[in-house]
């Protein structure tokens, strides 16, 4: 027990220090959490300046905490998912969402096929490079003040579309990778959508029941009920071979119809933050960075192609919203960072573990997310210079 307790202590302390350092140099915390996981994990590097640093092993305790991280990341995604906004702006949101999907998923699929990957491996790769990081993107929207400008509408619209798409996509991937032939896959897709369909019906029409179930004066009772119900639903889903993350997403959307949303944001968000930090740490823990050398070519191609992809789809999305060239470019720049959802896909890939899913894809994705979060931050920081340069080349400076 002493060993396990010490490992969890070292993990959380390491994450805390990494987050502090990231904040100091103005980087997103997600890559910092991963890096400290790589550092402290059993894979290389195992020693730093002669000091052994492989202090934390992959074990069940860290695994369960990380799993809760995935569940609560998706639970909050569902909770904050704005159905009203999606319906109100459905035409523009579906236009920019489809554009974003076709361009970026398409690039990912093309890369996978070009490198000779199997269909399932390619599907994972395409998903990983497709989805932007809601956490990093919204954070940079706030920091740059773009949130108050017009470019925030297509950016947030794209994220809303990506959120719902990644939920469906995760459910599909989890079902088809469950093993067996085509028939088994079809069955498990059926089970997944029955379960999720049932869950969303309960979530939607059971709003009154949720309302009463979570009505309590005690914060302690409240957090216990939210964490309890969410974990039970996620666990039940996993037992049926359905993605636990997606089940949590649907439960979250159900709760978003109740009056408890604000309270969950206040009281349960710290639990989410703790579990999610351990999840990013655990991703780093299980990453063998020596594998990165083998995927360097793929990584370089993916970084260049998918950065260009987001710039293209974002710029076109800005046009769909009727923005000028400068703002349209900002939409593209803002959507470049990839993060938590790419890693959720990796967790699923690693849990299947066959072929490239268990080794190459996790190493690639960790490298990719690290690079893209840095590239994304730099692009946003330098946005004014970049848009000036682009506009002077195209000779259409709209600032006058």
């Amino acid at each position, binding site marked *: 027990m002493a060993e396990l307790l010490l490992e969890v202590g070292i993990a959380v302390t390491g994450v805390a220090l990494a987050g502090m350092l990231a904040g100091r140099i103005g980087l997103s915390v997600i890559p910092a959490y991963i890096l400290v996981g790589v550092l402290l994990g059993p894979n290389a590097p195992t020693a730093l300046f002669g000091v052994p640093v492989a202090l934390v092993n992959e074990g069940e305790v860290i695994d369960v905490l990380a799993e809760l991280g995935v569940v609560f990341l998706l639970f909050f995604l569902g909770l904050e*998912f704005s159905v*009203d906004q999606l319906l109100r702006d459905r035409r523009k949101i579906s236009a920019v969402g489809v554009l974003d999907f076709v361009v970026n998923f398409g690039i990912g699929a093309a890369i996978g096929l070009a490198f000779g990957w199997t269909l399932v491996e390619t599907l994972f790769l395409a998903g990983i490079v497709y989805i932007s990081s809601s956490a990093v993107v919204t954070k940079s929207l706030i920091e740059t*003040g773009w*949130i108050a400008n017009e470019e925030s509408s297509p950016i947030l619209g794209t994220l809303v579309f990506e959120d719902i798409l990644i939920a469906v996509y995760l459910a599909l991937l989890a079902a088809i990778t469950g093993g067996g032939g085509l028939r088994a896959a079809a069955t498990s897709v059926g089970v997944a959508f029955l379960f999720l369909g049932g869950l969303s019906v309960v979530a939607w029409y059971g709003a009154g029941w949720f309302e009463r179930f979570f009505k309590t004066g005690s914060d302690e009772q409240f957090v216990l009920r939210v964490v309890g119900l969410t974990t039970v639903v996620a666990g039940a889903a996993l037992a049926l071979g359905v993605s636990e993350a997606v089940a949590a997403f649907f439960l979250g959307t159900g709760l978003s119809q109740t009056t408890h949303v604000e309270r969950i944001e*206040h009281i349960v968000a710290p639990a989410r933050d703790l579990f999610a930090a351990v999840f990013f740490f655990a991703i780093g823990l299980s990453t063998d960075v020596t594998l990165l050398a083998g995927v360097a070519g793929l990584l370089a191609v993916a970084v260049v192609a998918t950065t260009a992809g987001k710039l293209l789809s974002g710029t076109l999305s800005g046009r769909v919203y009727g923005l000028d060239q400068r703002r349209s470019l900002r939409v593209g720049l803002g959507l470049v960072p990839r993060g938590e959802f790419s890693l959720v896909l990796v967790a699923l890939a690693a849990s299947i573990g066959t072929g490239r899913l268990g080794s190459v894809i996790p190493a690639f994705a960790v490298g990719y997310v690290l690079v893209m979060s840095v590239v994304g931050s730099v692009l946003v920081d330098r946005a004014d210079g970049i848009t000036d340069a682009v506009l002077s080349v195209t000779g259409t400076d709209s600032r006058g």
Partner: protein
Amino acid sequence: MTVYETDVPGVGKKFEVELDGDERLVIVIHHDGKREVFHKDGPDVDADRLFTLGGRQAREVGAILQGAYFQPVETDSVDVPLGDAIIEWVDVESDSPLAGQTLADAKVRQRTGASIIAIQRDGTTLPNPDPEDTITPGDILVTLGTRDEQSALEDLVAPDDDG
């Protein structure tokens, strides 16, 4: 004045308030209570961040903007360096019985115990008003007195409901 409301996932809500002309005020309310306020000269212009407030600060500033901040004075929670006395701001309605009277005629101090220490009129403040100054509708009387004296004064200034 139109207000646009948008959800910002993971952050909170964004309100965009149309001001005069094309000017806009953008307020982002975070789930943790933090408020960020931006100003834009037009829908097509980059926003400037004006200020950031915590939840409690925001509520106090909001109450001041609303003009409600100084009305509900709670003596047990507010430091008043005037002993029992408090300062109140009292609006003079057009049908107030005091409207049209000079301060000398109104005999506010004799009738209520509270003193008028200033009059705010059309955005300017007349400190230590003269007894011959006339109270006119739209004035704001700045008055000093105890809680009881203040409420007597408010009754005096208020229009007669039954009249």
